[in-house]
């Protein structure tokens, strides 16, 4: 704890304080005792001490009055001893009956000395008082001197700092001036460079303007060329597309043509064969003397025209085809029920054919290339059969 915060000592602190003192004493290792007569043992090595602050005269002044008083007292005592001793020697002599004149003189002298001693005492007291005052004044003067010295030191320090600061400032100013001059020189050089660069920039600007103008014209040309190129590309793309389409179409057409030729060849071959058979049968039939209506009836029944019409009518994509098949169905049903022995049956059937315009309608349906295959076959057979009926008429 610091001195300012000293609290009332507790028992614990008291115990610890005593313990600590005892421990400190135990731990203290004093050196060898000093030699008698106050002569110390030579110390082997002293550690470097920091410079002592200047000693004040106060300790000496403190003892000065006491020392002066002691000296005076000693002097007074010696004087008294001498005087007393003189008086005692005289008192021990044979003519002591009455005070001899020498003794009276001595007594006077002693009184005189006592008076002088008293005066001396007074002077001593006065001197001591003066000394006290002097001491106080000396202390005051010492303090003032110390302050003055301190102020002097401070003033010297301040002066030194001021001098250093001014020197530093001068140096700094010189440096800054030099730096400024250097910067000015650099600035001038930069300005010259800038002026040169500006001239270059102007020239380049002119060139750039000219180049920009021609560039603009070139750009327009380029844009125009690009547009033309783009148009050409588009045209080319369209042409290529058209060409591809045509090629594809041509290819498909070729394929279709090849297929059609193939079918035609097949049809021709088969038709040739059929026609051969037809011719043979044609001749055979003529020999057999079969009636035409009857032959047609048989042909229609053999071909199962009526039932096939009823069956495939739903496959017809167009209404006209469906209607045609209905008519075919009706007409051929009629054909089936004709009495061949009736002379009028052929005429009535022909009349029915004419009324329904069936042959033409069959031809129209057959000319449709997208016609259903089964429908096409049925209509073709119907046409052939009806061709025989026509001839019958």
């Amino acid at each position, binding site marked *: *704890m*610091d*001195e300012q915060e*000293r609290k009332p000592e507790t*028992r*614990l*602190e008291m*115990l*610890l*304080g*005593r*313990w*600590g*003192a*005892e*421990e*400190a*004493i*135990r*731990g*203290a*290792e*004093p*050196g060898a*005792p*000093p030699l*008698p007569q*106050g002569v*110390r043992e030579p110390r082997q090595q*002293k*550690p470097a*001490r920091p410079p*002592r*602050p200047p000693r004040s005269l106060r*300790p000496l002044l403190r003892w000065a009055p006491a020392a002066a008083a002691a000296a005076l007292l000693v002097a007074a005592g010696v004087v008294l001893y001498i005087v007393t001793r003189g008086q005692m020697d005289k008192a021990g002599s044979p003519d002591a009956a009455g005070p001899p004149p020498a003794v009276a003189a001595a007594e006077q002298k002693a009184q005189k000395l006592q008076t002088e001693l008293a005066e001396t005492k007074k002077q001593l007291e006065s001197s001591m008082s003066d000394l006290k005052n002097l001491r106080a004044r000396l202390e005051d003067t010492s303090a003032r001197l110390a302050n003055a010295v301190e102020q002097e030191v401070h003033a010297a320090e301040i002066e030194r700092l001021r001098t250093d600061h001014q020197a530093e400032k001068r140096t700094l100013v010189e440096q800054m001036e030099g730096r400024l001059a250097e910067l000015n020189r650099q600035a001038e050089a930069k300005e010259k460079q800038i002026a040169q660069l500006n001239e270059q920039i102007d020239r380049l600007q002119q060139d750039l303007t000219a180049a920009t103008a021609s560039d603009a014209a070139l750009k327009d040309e380029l844009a125009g060329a690009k547009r033309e190129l783009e148009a050409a590309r588009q045209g080319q793309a369209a042409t290529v597309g058209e060409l591809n389409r045509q090629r594809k179409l041509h290819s498909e057409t070729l394929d279709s043509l090849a297929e059609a030729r193939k079918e035609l060849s097949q049809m021709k071959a088969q038709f040739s064969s059929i026609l051969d058979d037809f011719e043979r049968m044609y001749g055979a039939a003529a020999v057999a003397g079969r009636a035409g209506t009857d032959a047609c009836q048989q042909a229609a029944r053999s071909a199962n025209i009526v039932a096939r019409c009823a069956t495939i009518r739903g496959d017809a994509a167009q209404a006209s085809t469906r209607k045609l098949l209905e008519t075919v169905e009706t007409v051929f049903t009629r054909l089936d029920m004709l009495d061949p022995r009736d002379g009028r049956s052929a005429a009535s059937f022909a009349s029915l054919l004419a009324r329904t315009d069936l042959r033409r309608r069959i031809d129209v349906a057959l000319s449709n290339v997208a016609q259903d295959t089964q429908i096409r076959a049925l209509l073709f057979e119907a046409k052939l059969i009806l061709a025989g009926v026509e001839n019958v008429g």
Partner: protein
Amino acid sequence: MSDMEVQLVQQCLGGDKAAFESLYDLHARRTKAYFARSGFTPADAEDLTQDTFIRAFNSLRTFNGELGTLSGWLATIARNVARRHWNRRGDGRDFDPQLAEQTLEVKNNPTYTAEAAEEHEAINDCISRLPEEMANIVRLRYVAARTTRGIAAAAEMPESTVRLRLAEALAALESCLRAKGILE
């Protein structure tokens, strides 16, 4: 003053060097400990101890055993010597003068009573049970007689931490000494 001391003084006055050395042995530790706890360096404490005993020897004739003990007389000389060289200390604020003064008041023989000896040993034992940091702070405070500021400087820690650790150490020591019956 003991008879032995009376005899030693008389022998010293008779110029007996051995008697002086005996007196020195009896009182030098305490004197040096006083200077050390007052803030003097060990070298200065040794110097001042020597100075004290030289002065004591030189003025031994003025010693009056009827007015006081020899240790008290020596203590007075030591105080005067310390005051005379007060400026040689480092930072005086690091040392507690009251604890330093306590050095001169302690009896020469710490084991003069069995009770005191028991207390001394009990405190040693309780301090040995403390954590090292706390034990160090207690020794700096009560053995080296340092103030909080002086402990902080020696232990290189903030003063607030010193106060805290010291309070914790005192609480632990109080509890320990109560358990030993030294404190109530």
